[in-house]
């Protein structure tokens, strides 16, 4: 079975600073993908970044990057130069080719202080 764990229910960061959101996962599959989704208050859930498990290189998308530690089953999200618009609930998720389902963590609520 797949599980995704986010141990930080809430985080706070000062504007322009860097913050790291933690995520660990467990899966028995060899072929899987990992995602970070962002859900702003009362707004649409959108994809932030995605990582193919077979790739060793960490994914990067502008100010967002991941630290993918496959052996440790860790998939953290780093947000650099935080902006007020980054304030949202962030969900880590995993998708396995055998189960064909996206499994979500419980989310981390990120506050950005001006």
């Amino acid at each position, binding site marked *: 079975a797949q599980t995704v764990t986010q141990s930080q229910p809430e985080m706070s960061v000062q504007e322009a600073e860097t913050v790291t959101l933690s995520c660990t996962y467990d899966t028995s*599959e060899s072929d899987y993908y990992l995602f970070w989704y962002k859900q702003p208050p009362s707004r649409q859930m959108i994809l932030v970044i995605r990582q193919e498990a077979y790739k060793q290189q960490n994914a990067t998308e502008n100010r967002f990057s991941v630290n993918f530690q496959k052996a440790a089953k860790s998939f953290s999200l780093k947000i650099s130069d935080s902006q007020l618009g980054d304030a949202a609930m962030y969900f880590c998720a995993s998708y396995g080719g055998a189960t064909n389902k996206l499994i979500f963590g*419980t989310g981390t609520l990120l506050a950005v202080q001006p």
Partner: protein
Amino acid sequence: EADIYQTPRYLVIGTGKKITLECSQTMGHDKMYWYQQDPGMELHLIHYSYGVNSTEKGDLSSESTVSRIRTEHFPLTLESARPSHTSQYLCASSELGQGAGETQYFGPGTRLLVL
């Protein structure tokens, strides 16, 4: 933003009423999903579909039903709403055939309150 739409965005309804939550996407995606999300909590898959005339139950037991008569449309129906159905319902879609790397695109959600 992804081209996936949900109506209504908000719905307050009395116990026992029949309701249908609409979801449409214009991306031509084969796979569609319904998730249930309580405030500040994770998403739970309640239904999904691989294409027209395909519907499957998800991991979370739900008294709702779905249909997929057209590729772009995936409505969810509650025959008799109860207060326990109060939640947010998110619709999503993805392209079939991307293997394990499919990215799901989400609609804005429907917030349902059953009195």
